[in-house]
């Protein structure tokens, strides 16, 4: 079921990128999709694709909202005349509770595009994510906010 759905989505993506929605082109797209899915078959044949898709959509929506808020905040910040009084940068080690590479990558990307935070590095043992924040007053509150917000959502979308 999930593979059929993926094939359709990928074929539509193919038609979008090549810019032609004719039947032969859609069939060619489906053919290419099947070939690609065959190559990565061991990674995509997981059950429960639909509930996960919904959670991923929720995460994507949250991400867009956060990105807009983030851009507005950066805009307001850099237009202040007394800019340097309003920034207190810090690089903070965030203890990761997600463990898989895909989850860490997703979390790091979400953090980078949200207000005032930027992923700098992951420790060798993958236990800490180093985050640069543009204005930190309370370190514990900062860590708790990410753990309860994005990290919880990432775990929901990936499991």
């Amino acid at each position, binding site marked *: 079921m999930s593979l059929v759905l993926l094939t359709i989505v990928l074929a539509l*993506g193919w038609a*979008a*990128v090549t*810019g*032609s*929605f004719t039947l032969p082109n859609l069939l060619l797209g489906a053919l290419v999709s099947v070939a690609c899915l065959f190559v990565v078959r061991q990674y995509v044949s997981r059950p429960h694709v639909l509930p996960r898709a919904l959670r991923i959509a929720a995460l994507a929506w949250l*991400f867009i909202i956060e*990105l*807009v808020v*983030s*851009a507005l905040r*950066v*805009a307001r*910040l*850099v*237009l202040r005349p007394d*800019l*340097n009084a309003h*920034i*207190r*940068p*810090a*690089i*903070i*080690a965030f203890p990761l509770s997600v463990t898989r590479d895909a989850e860490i990558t997703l979390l*790091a*990307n*979400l953090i*980078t*595009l949200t*207000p*005032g935070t*930027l*992923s*700098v*590095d992951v420790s060798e043992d993958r236990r*800490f994510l*180093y985050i*640069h924040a*543009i204005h*930190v007053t309370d*370190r514990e509150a900062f860590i708790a906010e990410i753990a309860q917000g994005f990290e919880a959502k990432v775990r929901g979308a990936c499991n």
Partner: protein
Amino acid sequence: MIAELARYLGALLVLAGALFSLIAAIGVLRLPDLYTRLHAASKAGAIGAGLILLAVAVVSFDGAVVLRALLGIVFLLLSTPVAAHLLARAAYRCGEAPTATTTVDDLK
């Protein structure tokens, strides 16, 4: 009527996108070090370019162009944070020190 509305909406989106790109540039000029500058470049910059692509989608009235513009936005949002992260990481590993007002540095 719809075409007229789409043109105005498109113009508005292009202006907003250009404004965010300008703000990103001002941020890069005014912020004190590489890490804080990346905040401006990655966020305001991504929104600016995204809005301009969205404007293309709104004014084109061509399904293929709309889908490609939307795909462009998706790829932009996927690649911008990776680029910012790699720049920050490479800079830190090369010994670029954060600005003196930085309060905590756990990476040291």
